[in-house]
């Protein structure tokens, strides 16, 4: 029973950062913006969160710092893609590359330092239910509120939204910032709760997996929960199996989450009709208001 609880707990801690980042990106993509820089925002969140907690001793301040880091990164992305209408794919990649480089530089002094761990009750830290509550809130917001409707409208046709008098760019900025906050928080969770220490490149592709989760969830928040917990389970499974089954090389088990991501993408994307019906129509398309 204890064994079962321990495994369930590790699955939850593995799933939570994925869910946080995925839900944020889901809102961004619903507004028609593709931010591939989740990995970069996440790693910046991780290093800034760790650093702030390390110096102040407060995980609360750490989490706030990680959110701030994610938002700052997302603003950089927003300025380029929304104000300067640069290519969203390339800019997202740039954000990731910059984030990975910058975090390495910032975090140099933190390597090997003891971290501060987020408080928890019976192993459950506040962000585990927090992430699920956030999903519920996002789901309600997107599908039950006027503001959520506006976001979906902007993602479906920015030209129509513009001609009805909505400020497309402002809506997208807000969504991009929300996505940055979520990704930053997800990073902070990694360095403050998941493995309370700083390791270079510690996100290890989780930002990209979160991006895949959004596709897997076909842009519906609740499906992201299912996806995140599924992936959490798979990555934990690979560690758990490593300790038992000596026959299978650990590298193969470690590559399991990445392979599963590919398989999930293939399965979901293969259904072209469903993809076309659910993908925000303006996803990744630049918008310049005419005058």
């Amino acid at each position, binding site marked *: 029973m204890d064994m079962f609880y321990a495994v369930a707990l590790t699955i939850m801690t593995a799933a939570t950062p994925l869910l946080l980042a995925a839900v944020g990106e889901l809102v961004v993509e619903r507004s028609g913006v593709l931010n591939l820089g989740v990995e970069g925002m996440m790693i910046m969140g991780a290093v800034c969160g760790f650093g702030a907690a390390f110096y102040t001793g407060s995980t609360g301040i750490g989490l706030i710092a990680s959110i701030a880091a994610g938002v700052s990164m997302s603003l950089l992305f927003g300025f380029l893609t929304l104000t300067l209408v640069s290519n969203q794919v390339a800019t997202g990649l740039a954000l990731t590359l910059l984030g990975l480089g910058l975090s390495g530089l910032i975090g140099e002094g933190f390597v090997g330092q003891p971290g501060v761990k987020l408080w928890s009750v019976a192993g459950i830290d506040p962000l585990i239910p927090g992430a699920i509550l956030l999903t519920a809130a996002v789901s309600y917001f997107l599908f039950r509120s006027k503001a959520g409707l506006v976001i979906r*409208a902007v993602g479906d046709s920015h030209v*129509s939204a513009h001609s*009805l008098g*909505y400020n497309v760019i402002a809506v997208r900025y807000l969504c991009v910032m929300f996505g940055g906050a979520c990704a930053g928080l997800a990073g902070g969770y990694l360095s403050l709760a998941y493995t309370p220490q700083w390791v270079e490149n510690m996100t290890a592709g989780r930002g990209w997996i979160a991006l895949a989760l959004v596709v897997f969830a076909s842009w519906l928040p609740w499906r992201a929960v299912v996806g995140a917990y599924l992936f959490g389970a798979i990555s934990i499974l690979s560690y758990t199996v490593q300790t038992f089954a000596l026959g299978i090389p650990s590298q193969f088990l470690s590559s399991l989450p990445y392979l599963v991501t590919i398989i999930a993408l293939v399965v979901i994307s293969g259904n072209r009709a469903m993809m076309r019906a659910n993908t925000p129509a303006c996803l990744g398309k630049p918008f310049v208001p005419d*005058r």
Partner: protein
Amino acid sequence: MTGEPEYLLEALHVAKVFGTLRANDDVTLKVKPGEIHALLGENGAGKSTLVKMIYGALQPTSGEFRWLGKPVHIPNPAAARKLGIGMVFQHFSLFEALTVAENIALAMPGDFDLAALSERISRVSKDYGLPLEPNAVVADLSVGERQRIEIVRCLLQEPRLLIMDEPTAVLTPQEADQLFRTLARLAREGCAVLYISHRLEEVKRICHNATILRHGKVVANVDPTLETAASLARLMVGGDIHIVKSARKHKIGDVRLRLDHLNLPPDGPFSVGLKDISLEVRAGEIIAIAGVAGNGQSELFDALSGERELARADMLLIDGTPSGKSGINERRDRGAAFVPEERLGHGAVPSFSLSDNVVLTRHSTDETLVKSGVVQKSGATEVSGRVSTSFDVRKAKPDPEARSLSGGNLQKFVIGRELDRKPGILVVNQPTWGVDAGASATIRQAIIDLARDGSAVLVISQDLDEIFEIADRIAVISRGELSEAHPASQMSAEKIGLLMAGAHEVKEARHAHIA
């Protein structure tokens, strides 16, 4: 001031300048409550610019607007709606993935209550003869139904002025009649309608007043009921009306393009499937396919051009050769040429020079353009120069990017590029969509001349005037089915309208009659 002011809206000496272009120049327009006021003009005369300023989507460079006699500033569409101005755009501002009710909610101020709104939509839409299902997703609706959403969206805000931009361009004649009844009722209730059109007959029929724009200036303000269509046209175009020389008396030869029970499944949730289409186009003949947008025209074009492969080769024969499974370049090699509806991004690459755009469609047919895999720039430049000269393509430099050309000039280039090959078969979708009168006349004349020289021409068009001007025979496409092609002399707008509403119904009715 006593009583109501005489005018609801006045635009006084309004001008709008884009760079060096004076889109509107000293325009004065006065609209009374309860009147249907036509705004007439050719493409590019400045009608859209003017109404966008009235709707707050653009700001005038100079001049002023008055609302009920008082000067107003309309900074954005929300402010216009607050005044009581509603607008139905030519290109709808709808959201395909959202429901009817959600689409309307986005334009409504105040509380967000979808259930109550849905109930109001059902009631008002039924009341005005424009029935709508609030929970339907827009992507599943026809163009006519989409327009209803736009109209109901305006009506729910109880507008005092309703602006309609070319509303009947996308409607069947019967749907248009229903719209006219709705507009007449609105006018009786005191709502003014600003009606933009270049269709003179309908303006004569429903409008009380007409302001005519030419090159951004007001040239006349008339009572359309006292004018003839010809006199209105003269005011619009400014005397020199382009007349296309009819070519009805040329020789009709063998079948060159043949569609034989052509079927094509829809390729997505929002696409139309083609059902059992048969048609023969003969040498020397122009056949026009009429129809309301979204009834399978683009799918038919893709099937003919080879951008979508057919299930069997013998569904499509080019000069007798089964070509249904051939690619677009094989079809071109057999003498066919294609001009799609979308100029930028389909018929031409916007960021490419004109000479590169020559290579785009002619790399497989012209040996002078590609030699052992290497593109011959000189050959392409020569063709582009020849096309530009013979079709009078106006451009700022010898080999500009396609996107820098105006719509009419680019369309002349895109059509000229194909005609320059002297194709045996030409398939063209919406040849003069959004093109000014001068370019339209050039293009239509070139198409007629091509047919006269023995080519088979298939024109897909939504423009009935154009169809009657150039077609020898007319068929109608509706929900992916094609009616029989009848000689143009035996067709009328009413008959085409009936066929548009449902070719299969007419066919069934006729079968029933024969039985």
